[in-house]
């Protein structure tokens, strides 16, 4: 037999002797995929709290302009006069932005990791057994929701894309009027509905995933985890989607 030109394969040994570099413990945790999922779960909980309370707050729309606008004012006066006006709101905002950034960074770096983990894709069609529409579209639903958040801020916070009021100027405090004016444009209402349906899809898988990523696993409540995730998603979506529909149907108007 001709001597092969391939290099001689070396035996396997000492594979676990390389010293590991340890960083400060939170960074160390975040360095691995499991740790990043932990960060996603924690930031996910924060974002869940936001979407839920945002929706509940907005339900005040059904009580009329005064209630809703007053609610907006109330948020600015959280813990006032113990803390200066808007300070708590800003702390919450910054926390939320931090959580969103963490969520996005973890998602982005895990996506990159996953790409590297399968550099050559399957050449034949896959036949998935368990992966759901929700789990497989997390990236897509996440991106759409992110785009929606940007639009939503431009529309109702900064007024850049809002139709101006009767006096030709966007007044941020007139929350009720701004919302109604915005949703009177059907493409905006439609985008809002679609984005929220995708948010629901995102939540229905994401909320369940939180339990797994944090290791909250117990036969006593495991059966309720998916039910909770779907229920939570449903509550948020139904609440949120009702606003543009109510405006479109004229139930809520200026």
């Amino acid at each position, binding site marked *: *037999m*001709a*001597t*092969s030109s*391939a290099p*001689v*394969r070396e*035996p*396997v*040994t*000492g*594979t*676990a*002797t390389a010293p590991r570099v340890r960083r400060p413990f939170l960074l160390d945790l975040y360095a691995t995929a499991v740790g990043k999922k932990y960060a996603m779960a924690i930031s996910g909980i924060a974002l869940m709290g936001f979407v839920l309370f945002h929706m509940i707050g907005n339900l005040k729309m059904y009580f009329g302009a005064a209630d809703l606008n007053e609610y907006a004012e109330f948020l600015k006066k959280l813990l006032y006069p113990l803390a200066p006006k808007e300070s708590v709101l800003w702390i919450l905002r910054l926390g939320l932005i931090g959580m969103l950034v963490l969520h996005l960074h973890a998602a982005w770096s895990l996506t990159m990791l996953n790409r590297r983990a399968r550099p050559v894709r399957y050449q034949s069609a896959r036949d998935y057994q368990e992966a759901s529409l929700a789990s497989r579209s997390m990236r897509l639903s996440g991106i759409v929701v992110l785009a929606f958040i940007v639009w939503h801020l431009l529309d109702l916070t900064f007024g850049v894309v809002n139709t101006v009021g009767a006096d030709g100027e966007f007044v941020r405090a007139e929350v009720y009027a701004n919302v109604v004016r915005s949703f009177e444009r059907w493409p905006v209402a439609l985008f809002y509905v679609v984005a929220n349906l995708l948010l629901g899809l995102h939540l229905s898988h994401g909320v369940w995933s939180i339990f797994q990523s944090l290791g909250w696993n117990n036969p006593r409540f495991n059966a309720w985890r998916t039910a909770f995730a779907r229920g939570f998603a449903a509550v948020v979506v139904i609440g949120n989607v009702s606003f543009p529909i109510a405006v479109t149907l004229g139930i809520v108007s200026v």
Partner: protein
Amino acid sequence: MTMLEDRSTTNAKLNSKVPTGALADKWDTFKANAKLVNPNNKRKFKVIVVGTGLAGASAAATLAELGYQVDAFTFHDSARRAHSIAAQGGINAAKNYQGDGDSVSRLFTDTIKGGDFRSREGNVYRLAQVSVNIIDQMVAQGVPFAREYGGLLDNRSFGGAQVSRTFYARGQTGQQLLLGAYQQLSRQIGSGGVRLFNRCELVDIVVIDGRAAGIVTRDLLTGQVTSHAAHAVVLATGGYGNVYFLSTNAMNCNVTAAWRAHRRGAYFANPCYTQIHPTCIPQADETQSKLTLMSESLRNDGRVWVPKNADETRPAHQIPDEDRDYYLERLYPSYGNLAPRDISSRAAKRLVDKGQGVGPLKNGVYLDFSAAINRLGRNVVEERYGNLFEMYERIAGENPYEVPMRIYPATHYTMGGLWVDYELQTTIPGLYAAGEANFSDHGANRLGASALMQGLADGYFVLPYTISNGLAPLLNKSVPGTDHPEFKRVEAEARDRYQAYLNVKGTRSPDYFHRELGKIIWDYCGMERDRNGLEKAISEIPALYDEFKKDLRVTGTGEGVNQTLEKAGRVDDFFQLGMLMCKDALTREESAGGHFRVEYQTAEGEAQRDDENFCHVAAWEWTGDANNATRHEEQLSFETLQLATRSYK
């Protein structure tokens, strides 16, 4: 050592080196007198361990823990794939946790009797002694053995024993034990104590100045043939049941390592002792590649029968009771369907040979659970055997709750193997054999749940002591390196051998020849042997072997992965072993354990030993011609037990 006595009468090489003194003290005597290697000197010695099953992985891990440099070899992709993993039932140990009267000496007695008085007392007693350490060791390593509700270890009983001494992990005991040993080996690989060569097959042994100097391997990924030198070589390479082609062994199990050692001077002992398991799923068609074993526990509730009429065409459930032959209940009224493995196997074979077999190929017997289902209810049967029924349905495609299972005996273990002394050293100094690869502990027949015990005993608790005894005298003496001309010569021989398979360019694949060889061996040297058949086999095998040499077809090249080429090398060695097996079976003119000669049976069809003439180990010496090996004898003497005839009536 002066206290060692020489029991062999016929050949100086067959010195069993069993220490003198009372049976119970022999192992302690050995350990007290064995030479040791100072901890700082251990790293100066290199030990090669071939095979990473229970015996190999445990030996490699333990030797590395002690401080030896260990090179471990497996032809698998990972050490965890070794065939020990497929053992289902359990592992015996004389723990007496059930308080039912078990003891070291009872396990010893059961093993000697089960082996039909064809094993060495000293080795078997040691096996029973260290069995208790094995359980401790494996539990400490995290093997999830079955537990009672109180948290203590559970036991079950097994054939050939009247006590419950079998520890088990569901139906996957072998897997769990192997993973335990694999994990311990992995720790040593991780820390650098062991160098693992995976996908690397032993193709020859190098002997220099009468001592094992190392091995030659073939890298299955690149085809490269390389040499490895060491102070000692351990072969833990399993049994040769695949010589039958169809067996319960894994597809890649082979005899090559043991056979190449044999060709270099290691005696091969008792090759005719092979064990047949009665409850396997019968062959379904000509494409079949292997047989699957179903746990013997099924016979506790299933009734075995065949139709009385060989021309029966009705489906099983339409055959009335009066047209069925419950032959085990008829022939062995007291044991009935629980008759011992070999007896029920032979009974099935006789009926199938008479044409009363069942199934499309008429090659099985029914194992019928309808009575049990009627008596106990389907739920109880499902609880006891649910997973086995599922496995059967997956393979046979029939639902055993509705249609009786079909079963037939198949080879699953070989008691024969490389001859070793008390130190597990072969007739080549420096070459050791452990686990199923050696012949030592089971005599002519192995008890259920004893294979795992022996593999781990050899690797964990015997070899580490005996190897230091062998290595100590070599301290500071130089041993040949791989640049020695003999290494180069053997390497070249191996390269030529594999190139020769490629060069034949005939028409038949290695599998074809393996299948044909297997048929001959199964027909003439299987469950029942007789002189005529064996003589026929001895004339047919060389003819087929000649055809193999002339008409073999191996496609592809010798570089890179070539599974056809790997197979060719293994089949070549099976041919040579097959000839020796038949010759061994022919010359052992008695029936003992797994070796049943039709000419030597009692009126009741029981095996009839000839203690006068055959109370010995037959150890064969290679002479250069597979059909012309020289037979040597190691006399077996029984100091503690009386030679007795077993009876299961």
